[in-house]
């Protein structure tokens, strides 16, 4: 097990380097002149040259990358925004909890909805429930989150006044200048974003779980279990679910990692100050350190979640666990 963990950790570190090198190359090498962007409009040639020296842009590219990695690893620093001179780390620390609230909250909802519906549809294919859920799946996959979000916000927020139209409240009270705070307000403001965000994933997961359960029910070992005299409940829980939910763990890990990188559409519609929202702003302002920082952060999220999935999988599936 230790060997397995060590191998996985080395793999994660390797992935981190590959991903950051690519990100770094794309965002720092391709644009015309980062120094000009950083110096701002109306800067003289001398200003730009000073900025270039200050940002080490006059050094070779490998040196710049090394400097970037060193800052990231030793000082956990991702540099400063060109726009507001805040550190990128501070901004990410502000935004990440918002995105995490959205993603993890929605994940709890989509799992608790899609597992039972997926299993029941698989048990009774072509039943009324199965047909209804497959219709929902089709709509959920086809409808764009922007459309869903706007409709929900218009109907429940604007027309019925059941929920806020947009905005975010901190979970933990005590932020100076906050208009609202606390778990209740937080959840109240998150309901529509959660629903908007979960629709697509619920649809995908219902379809995935239904297919996996149906496939597993045809496995030879399920027939063996029935030939032993096991009850339908026992067959379902001990033999079918355990095996058919294994791939769901993998996909959930990847989806969570990806989604943390920014739920761009949902955050934009509901004006949630999360990472997706931030990255759009940074893009519009050519704020390169911010874009790089958020991309690197999402990369790290994906790597970390994949690592967690690998380790969990090792515990769940004996075929992968080394002996």
């Amino acid at each position: 097990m230790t060997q397995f963990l060590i191998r996985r950790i080395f793999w994660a570190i390797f992935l981190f380097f590959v991903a950051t090198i690519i990100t770094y190359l794309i965002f720092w090498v391709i644009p015309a002149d980062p120094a000009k962007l950083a110096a701002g409009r109306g800067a003289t040639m001398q200003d730009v040259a000073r900025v270039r020296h200050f940002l080490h842009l006059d050094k070779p590219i490998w040196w710049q990358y090394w400097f970037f990695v060193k800052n990231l690893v030793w000082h956990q620093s991702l540099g400063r925004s060109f726009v507001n001179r805040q550190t990128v780390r501070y901004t990410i620390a502000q935004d990440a909890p918002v995105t995490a609230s959205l993603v993890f909250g929605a994940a709890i909802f989509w799992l608790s909805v899609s597992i039972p519906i997926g299993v029941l549809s698989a048990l009774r294919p072509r039943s009324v429930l199965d047909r209804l859920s497959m219709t929902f799946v089709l709509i959920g996959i086809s409808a764009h989150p922007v459309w869903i979000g706007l409709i929900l916000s218009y109907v429940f927020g604007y027309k019925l006044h059941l929920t806020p139209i947009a905005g975010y409240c901190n979970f933990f009270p005590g932020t100076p200048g906050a208009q609202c705070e606390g778990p209740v307000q937080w959840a109240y403001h998150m309901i529509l974003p959660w629903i908007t965000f979960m629709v697509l994933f619920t649809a995908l997961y219902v379809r995935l779980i239904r297919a996996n359960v149906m496939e597993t029910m045809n496995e030879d070992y399920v027939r063996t279990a029935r030939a032993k005299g096991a009850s339908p409940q026992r067959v379902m829980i001990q033999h079918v679910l355990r095996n058919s939910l294994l791939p769901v763990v993998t996909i959930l890990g990847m989806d969570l990692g990806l989604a943390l990188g920014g739920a761009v559409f949902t955050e934009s519609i509901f004006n949630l100050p999360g990472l997706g929202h931030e990255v759009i702003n940074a893009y519009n302002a050519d704020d390169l350190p911010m874009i790089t920082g958020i991309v690197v952060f999402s990369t790290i999220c994906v790597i970390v979640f994949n690592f967690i999935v690998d380790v969990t999988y090792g515990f769940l599936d004996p075929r992968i666990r080394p002996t």
Partner: protein
Amino acid sequence: MATLEVTDLSTSFRTDDGIVKAVSGVSFSLDAGQTLGVVGESGSGKSVTFLTVMGLVDPRSAQVGGSVLLDGEQMLGLDKDRMRQIRGARIGMIFQDPMTSLNPVKTIGWQLEEAVLIHQDVTRKEARRQAIEILKEVEIPRAEARVEQYPHQFSGGMRQRVMIAMALINNPEILIADEPTTALDVTTQAQILRLMNRLQEEHKMAIVMITHDLGVVAEVADDVIVMYGGKVVEQANVRDLFSGAEMPYTWGLLGSLPRLNSAGGRLEQIPGQPPSLLRPPSGCPFHPRCEYVMNACRTDLPELRVSQHGEEHFFRCHLDDETRNRVWTAKRAAMLSEDAA
């Protein structure tokens, strides 16, 4: 009283394309300590017959008729709970592919214990003791250590031993083995058959050996039924079948056995494909492939009739006794001379 008495069993499935008559009019009986060989091609209904006996066909799509008596008790139409008490306790079943028949994420010990705990009111510790004991009985070395292992840590032959152990752990009266050696290599096949033989003597149980391999039948069976297109086409004890086969399909099966001394050349084969069960041929199901086909074969299904060789030998064929005698005597002579060469 026979341990298992099946009369006029039929199973059909509703599918999108229509009704599939997988099994019709199958009758046989099986006594304690006896082995029944069930032979036929894929799709002949041999597996479905015994999945029906086990109550393992999907009740939503399957239509079952006839009678299945286990020690005189009617099993067809039993409610699900009673049926579950019989499955795995009084009738055990093993399947063709040992590589996929065990749950990959549970230990061997857990899966054996599950079989005990479903049917016996004992502690997990006692179940574990029984699991180790039965693994020793099926000749798995280091049973105490191996119960902790997972199926992927076992070879194919070892997994089939585990399957046998699991089917026998509650001491059933009948073991149904659905092509238990098909997926194994030849030396392992022989070991598994010998093991089953020994266990049969020790446990005094009846065995149903479903196979398409007449070599296996010759080795283990007392009685044989030959199935074709969901029907029994010949039924006899094993000696009578090999010495006095009565109908063309059985002749074809016997002729297609590989022989040690045959002087090269191709194996004899039965031309054509097994019949579609969705749109079965009229009359005798074998008539499109039969080289002795007559007009009557195309319109009428021959009745199961008693053979001239003995009271316990039945077959379906329109050919008259004289022709059948002549053809079979010639075929048999050819086979024997090949063996002797």
